């Protein structure tokens, strides 16, 4: 059970000119473990949605056929379980056990079988809490394991995982992958979409690569596929193992002091922290979940009022304003001096086109329109966004949205750039571009602070690392 058969399958979302996925011929036998790869835009997520029966007939146009155990997936939904990328929007109920029970109730499982199956599913994914734990109190990794338990409790013949670890820190992602590895029955078919190939390989025995223009580019064992297509895939953004990225150490030493934090804190989110940021320096801030890294980024960015201690800007950064703390500067003055890049790019978008988005900062800081046009054109070019100038920011792919959010912060040419998890969920190509971009900025005399879990990013870029410890209990 759990066999998949696609014949010339294609899907075009209603209102779109281009096919999201097209011409796919694929047979997956029951119990196979498949890693589905392809550059951004190859239609991997659409294909998973089709297999999960989540593309209603009236929501687009279909070509060819898709079958699970000989059935249309829309009619064989109870055979398929799926776990998505975003933990926050997969949990339905307030208590963990109730959430796992939710699917069982929907499928009409008799009441006396529900709780034993809930307990079994929670046990299989190594869930560390009791079933009446509040789902809102879980970390992202724990929420994803709970979502996995919710899918497994339904005993699917086919389990689909759509980048389930892309939004997680490395430790949380590891635990989710371990849970997948140990929880799957031998006869459950697995189809996994994941950029981070090295981490995913222990879970799979077959790799299928989709071609962005349509069809299947490669299909076989991981060794065979990567031997033949590894270099191309790496260049297209897939994290193929054995293709390291050259680090970009600083070409000059650090320059003038830009920003100092003295005993800076915001109980209970951040304990007392001291640090200094210099021009021409890339500083990485690391630390476990809950240590207050994002809070520190907001405080340094002049976006939150410190609870304890202070942030002081140097005259080099703030001119005559250096006696005022950054959180009290007017917004246009702040944007000229310190740029902030948020973890979720969509939080930052204000206007309805990519062009206006980039023009907003320069206009707010009083640049003449000719200079604005020139700045925007330069950024569009540099961050490969030129063909998207008229697009709505909310319609961009993950990588495009990230590049745009960095570009908007650069548009006002701030001397200091502060980024919160800039590489989260990014493919290898965008990742490399970000490293190069930040390194170029640093070498041109800007200060760069990156709050990050990404050890590779730190190794490739950072000149110095500050590690935060969780705030002590008496401050929480």
């Amino acid at each position, binding site marked *: 059970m759990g066999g998949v058969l696609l014949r010339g399958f294609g899907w075009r979302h209603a209102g779109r000119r281009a096919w999201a996925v097209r011409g796919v011929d694929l047979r997956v036998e029951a119990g196979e473990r498949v890693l589905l790869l392809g550059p951004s835009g190859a239609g991997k997520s659409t294909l998973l949605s089709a297999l999960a029966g989540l593309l209603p007939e009236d929501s687009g146009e279909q070509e060819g056929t898709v079958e699970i155990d000989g059935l249309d997936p829309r009619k064989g939904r109870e055979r398929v379980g799926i776990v998505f990328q975003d933990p926050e929007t997969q949990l*339905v109920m307030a208590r963990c056990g109730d959430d796992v029970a939710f699917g069982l109730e929907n499928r009409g499982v008799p009441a006396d079988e529900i709780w034993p199956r809930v307990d079994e599913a929670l046990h299989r994914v190594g869930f560390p809490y009791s079933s009446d734990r509040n789902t809102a109190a879980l970390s992202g990794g724990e929420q994803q394991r709970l979502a996995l338990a919710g899918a497994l409790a339904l005993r699917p013949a086919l389990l689909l995982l759509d980048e389930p670890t892309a939004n997680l820190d490395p430790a949380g992602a590891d635990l989710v992958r371990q849970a997948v590895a140990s929880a799957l029955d031998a006869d459950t078919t697995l189809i996994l979409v994941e950029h981070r190939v090295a981490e995913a390989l222990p879970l799979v025995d077959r790799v299928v690569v989709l071609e962005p223009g349509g069809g299947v580019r490669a299909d076989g064992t991981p060794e065979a596929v990567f031997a033949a297509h590894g270099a191309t895939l790496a260049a297209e953004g897939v994290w193929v193992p054995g293709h390291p990225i050259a680090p970009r150490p600083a070409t000059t030493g650090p320059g003038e002091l830009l920003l100092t934090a003295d005993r800076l804190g915001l109980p209970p989110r951040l304990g007392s922290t001291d640090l200094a940021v210099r021009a021409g320096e890339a500083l990485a801030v690391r630390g476990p979940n809950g240590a207050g890294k994002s809070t520190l980024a907001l405080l340094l960015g002049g976006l939150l009022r410190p609870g304890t201690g202070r942030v002081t800007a140097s005259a080099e950064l703030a001119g005559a304003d250096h006696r005022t703390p950054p959180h009290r500067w007017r917004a246009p003055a702040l944007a000229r001096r310190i740029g902030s890049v948020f973890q979720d790019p969509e939080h930052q978008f204000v206007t309805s086109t990519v062009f206006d988005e980039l023009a907003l900062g320069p206009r707010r800081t009083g640049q003449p329109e000719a200079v604005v046009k020139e700045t925007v054109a330069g950024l569009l070019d540099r961050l490969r966004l030129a063909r998207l100038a008229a697009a709505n920011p909310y319609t961009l792919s993950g990588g495009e949205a990230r590049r745009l959010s960095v570009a908007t912060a650069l548009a006002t040419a701030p001397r200091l750039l502060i980024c919160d998890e800039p590489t989260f969920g990014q493919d290898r190509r965008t990742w490399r571009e970000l490293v190069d971009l930040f390194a170029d900025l640093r070498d041109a005399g800007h200060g760069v602070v990156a709050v990050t879990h990404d050890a590779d990013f730190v190794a490739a870029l950072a000149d110095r690392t500050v590690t935060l410890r969780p705030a002590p209990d008496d401050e929480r």
Partner: protein
Amino acid sequence: MISIEPVAAPDAPLARRNPVAKVAAALVFSFTLLATLDPVAPAIAIALELALLPLFGIRYRVLARRAWPLLLSAAGILVTLVLFAADRSGRVLLDAGPVLVSTGVLLTALGLVLRVFAVALPGVIVFATTDPTDLADALIQNVKAPARFAIGALAAFRLVPLLGQEWQMISMARRARGVDAGRNPVAKLRLFASTAFALLVGAIRRGTRLAVAMDARGFDAGTPRTVARRQHFTRADALLIAGAVVLAGAALTTSVLLGTFRPLIH
């Protein structure tokens, strides 16, 4: 932050009652009191509500903390009526130009304030003693509300506390982009509107993703649902509703007997 956790001791005799019974009792009690405009019936009702509070497992201090928006609206009513009431009858207490405070004004204001409290407190008590999940379960099982509505609302409700954080993030992101309103009230209003719009867009996108995830787990797929958590509607629950009818009736009757009863509809 919006709190959605019940604050009462869960095993108090009335807190344990079926959520639907509690909601029904609160509705019956409140609607009965709406029938009169006098201050006596609501005063009796408030006394009854406060006397029953320990049976719901709520401490008075906790209630005061929950009910502060009520105090605020009571103060608002008092000020509005003192300034604008048409009925200026009774003995004049204070005559300061346009502000004329008479006993008639004060009595009307007092009646309204008491009504607000008497009508709103049962609702506050129900939500302080009821878990939202239990309420959704009871709505589905005991009054046959559609699961699509009850569970859907419950899932959406779970996302509400996120909106506060989201608002803060969007506001900070805007400041980082060089957008602020300064002291200009028009700019403030426009910034508020655009932040609210961004929040709405985000909420819709999240809601859509949640709906797909629920769909993927077979929600509302036409299969008859089973229930993991049974909610029972017992005689004690029926008695709670009957008790609410009796007590509200008693408050009204006392008011009629004392001659203070002023019906809402003449």
